[in-house]
């Protein structure tokens, strides 16, 4: 430490950390693509009190919210390979479970996790759009799907967007836990680089900066999108 910061290492490792951004983004995007529709549908089962599914969604949310993400990762990362191994064996598939790219486990963990968060986000957003508008849509001859696509979902999105943004930023940050699955993302890459010369402070500063830039950028994009959606000024919701 007496030598101060190793600036050369700081700059080099910044780019090493940056090279982990695509992985973090792919995981984020895939998880959102799965969690957004699934979370919305399960939120509908909550709002409409659909017998079994409503209960399932409720329990699911409390399980995911009541446990740390790192534990969820450990559970998926240790149990899914066992499950796969027995399936491979049963159907004589000649494949080693340990050859499976850890990114698949990341997709599973983060999709499941984000779905739970979005169920709650959509549930509260849906409850701000009056049921009367849905009935009005039916009464002018729209089908269920048309009414949701044109009337309910656009308004739900406007209300939910700030929370979806928060969930996305949290998701990006949570991908840093992927190192526990040997996922080659931002944190792991920088830490591996630091291992060589014990330049941990520099590496952590780099990791810090990369997440900060990435998350700020994502927040900015959400703000732009929100402005566009909000044209109709939902003041009377």
């Amino acid at each position, binding site marked *: 430490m007496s030598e101060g910061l190793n600036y050369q290492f700081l700059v080099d490792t910044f780019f090493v950390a940056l090279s982990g951004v695509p992985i973090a983004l792919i995981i984020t995007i895939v998880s959102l693509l799965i969690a957004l529709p699934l979370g919305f549908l399960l939120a509908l089962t909550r709002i409409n009190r659909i017998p079994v599914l409503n209960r399932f969604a409720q329990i699911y949310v409390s399980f995911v919210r009541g446990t740390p993400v790192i534990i969820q990762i450990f559970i998926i990362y240790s149990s899914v390979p066992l499950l796969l191994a027995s399936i491979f064996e049963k159907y004589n598939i000649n494949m080693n479970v340990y050859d499976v790219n850890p990114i698949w486990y990341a997709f599973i963990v983060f999709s499941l996790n984000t779905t739970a968060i979005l169920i709650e986000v959509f549930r509260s957003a849906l409850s701000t759009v009056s049921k009367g508008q849905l009935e009005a849509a039916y*009464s002018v001859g729209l089908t269920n799907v048309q009414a949701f696509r044109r009337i309910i979902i656009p308004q739900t999105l406007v209300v939910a967007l700030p929370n979806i943004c928060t969930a996305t930023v949290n998701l990006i940050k949570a991908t840093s836990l992927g190192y526990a699955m040997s996922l080659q993302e931002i944190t792991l890459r920088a830490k591996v680089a630091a291992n060589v010369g014990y330049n941990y402070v520099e590496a952590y500063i780099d990791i810090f900066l990369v997440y900060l830039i990435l998350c700020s950028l994502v927040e900015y994009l959400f703000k732009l999108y929100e402005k566009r959606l909000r044209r*109709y000024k939902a003041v009377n*919701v």
Partner: protein
Amino acid sequence: MMLEITNIHKSFGNNEILKGVDLQIDKGDVVVILGPSGSGKTTLLRCINFLEKADQGHAIFGDIDVNLKTASKKQIHEIRQKVAFVFQNYNLFNNKTALENVTEGLIIGRKVAKDEAIEIGKKALDKVGLAEKYHAYPSELSGGQQQRVGIARAVALNPDIILFDEPTSALDPELVGEVLTVMKNIANEGTTMLVVTHEMSFAKDVANRVIFMDAGVVVEEGTPKDIFVNPKEERTKKFLKRVLPEDYIFYI
């Protein structure tokens, strides 16, 4: 007969709300339903438009003949093409402008060409006095203006009948007049209307038939004069005494 309903029954849990209601409406009729709150008026209208599923009952809408309990999706869709609804709380689409509110059902529900739908929509908004407000969002309109958009949305569909559920009861008193005027105008054009309202002046001046409902049954029906001047049933008399000023009879 344009609309004939027989023997509607509807319960919520153990609570029987409609206990066998019959209703006949001819083309051009303006029928007002009166009755104390909780008597099942809203539920009746909602069952007619399938926003609520009746437990029993039969309906003839022009050439469509349906069982209100077992109607198919297709039948419901066909009937909704013939029946428009004006809601107590307007229920405008908040993410759409006044004009889009009116054209939505035409373009999406009925597959009318967009240009044509916009023409029809503008005419409907002109008719309710909102020519200046085509592009205003509901949040930018007063309650009275919103309800007039609600009426334009119903009129634009050119339905066989429009159902009104207490269209003025959510409005500030000073805004009631503009909505009643619009309703009077469309009634005078020959629109068939079934109106639940507490506006006795509208019932007296515009309706050709008045129905008094209480506790899930039709107690009495007749011309406005029959009901207001010579009510036969004790329950009708009691209700009217409560809602009409003492000396009302002299104004008729």
